[in-house]
């Protein structure tokens, strides 16, 4: 018996990986370099106290780290972020799955989920403060409101989007409902679920800082607030740099788990996926 197609070569032989990584990172590195240079030049030329140059911000950051302020606050903020995001992910994926699987659940909850997604999440901060006071629960509430709805929406879309042909295939081979879910629907939906988790993580970082700034003044949010009161623009921007790094690392972590679980996706589809699930706000 003859086989009609030739063996497909692996798209990226391992020995080229390092070089490829370097060339892929090059545009980003150059863009960052140019951005920092422009910042530095503009700030020096303009010379305004609320717009310090990059070098001054880095200097201030080093000072803050030396004082031990950043690290202590970072631990507090990361703890809030981790707890809040975990709750959002578990509950969000669960509710999203129910919405995706059952038309009636979807029809019942759709309006709430979209209303909450588009509502400015910080509006809920005073409400949580009124309920939970100065405790950590207030901040966690804000983080969850920030991140859970985009996760719900993506998960529901992911479940709904599973190819009917695959489900029919499973049925034709006498799959039980349980088997259909765990062996077909869940793995098929995973890529889009992770797209939602990535977006949710970004929003959870926002929620953490906003919650800390507006409710209890702890963590990095507290550092920002106190620096702002002293008109210490360099410190505010220094903390902002830390927050951006935290957010990028957190999203990267989600991506790493994603890549492990959905490595079967062709890389082109992987890039196109982020565009399919958009996040207003």
């Amino acid at each position, binding site marked *: *018996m*003859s*086989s*009609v*197609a030739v*063996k*497909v070569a692996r798209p990226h032989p391992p020995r080229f990986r390092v070089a490829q990584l370097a060339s892929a990172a090059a545009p980003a590195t150059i863009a960052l370099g140019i951005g920092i240079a422009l910042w530095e030049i503009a700030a020096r030329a303009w010379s305004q106290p609320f717009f310090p140059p990059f070098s001054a911000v880095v200097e201030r950051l080093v000072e803050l780290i030396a004082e031990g302020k950043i690290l202590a606050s970072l631990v507090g903020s990361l703890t809030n972020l981790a707890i809040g995001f975990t709750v959002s992910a578990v509950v969000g994926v669960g509710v999203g799955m129910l919405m995706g699987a059952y038309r009636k659940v979807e029809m019942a909850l759709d309006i709430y989920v979209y209303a909450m997604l588009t509502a400015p999440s910080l509006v809920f901060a005073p409400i949580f403060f009124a309920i939970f006071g100065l405790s950590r629960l207030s901040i966690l509430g804000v983080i969850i409101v920030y991140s859970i709805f985009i996760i719900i929406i993506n998960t529901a879309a992911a479940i709904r989007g599973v*190819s009917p*042909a*695959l489900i*029919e*295939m*499973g*049925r*034709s*081979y*006498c*799959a*039980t409902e349980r*088997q259909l879910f765990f*062996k*077909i629907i869940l*793995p*098929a939906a995973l890529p889009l679920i992770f797209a939602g988790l990535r977006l949710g993580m970004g929003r959870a970082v926002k929620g953490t800082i906003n919650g800390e700034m507006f409710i209890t003044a702890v963590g990095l949010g507290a550092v920002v607030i106190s620096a702002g009161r002293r008109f210490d623009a360099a410190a505010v921007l220094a903390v902002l740099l830390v927050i951006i790094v935290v957010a990028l690392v957190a999203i990267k972590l989600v991506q790493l788990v994603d890549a492990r679980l*959905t490595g*079967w*996706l*062709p890389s082109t589809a992987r890039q196109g996926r982020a565009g399919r699930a958009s996040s207003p706000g």
Partner: protein
Amino acid sequence: MIELIGVAKTFPARGANPPVDALKDVNLTVGDGEFLTILGPSGCGKTTLLRMIAGLIPWEDGDILIDGRPVTGPGPERALVFQSFALLPWATILDNVAFGLELRGMPRPKRQARAMELIELVGLSGFESRLPGQLSGGMQQRVGLARALAVDPQILLMDEPFGALDEQTRRLLQEELLQIWEATRKTVVFITHSMEEAVLLGDRVALMGPRPGRVVDLVDVPLPRPRASTVDAIEGSEEFAKITAGLWRRLREMQLFRRHAAEGRHSSSEPAA
């Protein structure tokens, strides 16, 4: 043996669209070890009929019996091969072929050994750890065929399995299917819209007509078996030409009739949507 007795299927009204009689009074018997091809223009309900035999969709009237027992859902004695292949894109070829066995709870080493046999049978040895996306369409359908054969069904239900493939790949796969079938002699119901394919593969051709879908004719194909090694000679034979020409006459009538009916309706009442 598959028996269809007075089977009717109606798709319910949707919005402004009236209910559609997809199938009406379909009578058909497929003997054990028979290769029946179902041929018909698109929209005649042949895929619907196959999905009903597979137990995937309900119907309103009549009976579908397999060895005398009514069909109430999918069963282990039937296996489907899909036009769209319907492979799990995240699973290796080995796991895809073993999928039906996995659903039946066969332990991993055993089902993998069985899957390897089938992978060999369809000529995909060496590809078992690939993903479906790395294979050509023809190879993917070999996987689909291997997956169906792995569960050792009595009946293979094939829904235009080669419809999505290019001509050359299709011809190769037809030959291989003949070879496999002539070695295993399972009961096959094979949907196609190609007259040549219907005649080349089938013991009989059930010709279906549209609106409502029904079996309008059953044509015997008295070409000698085994055919796998003599495909070219068969396709060049007078007998083959005669049968396909006869089928084409009937199909053309149906298409022309349909066009006239459509034109008549449009000119007398509302313009075409």
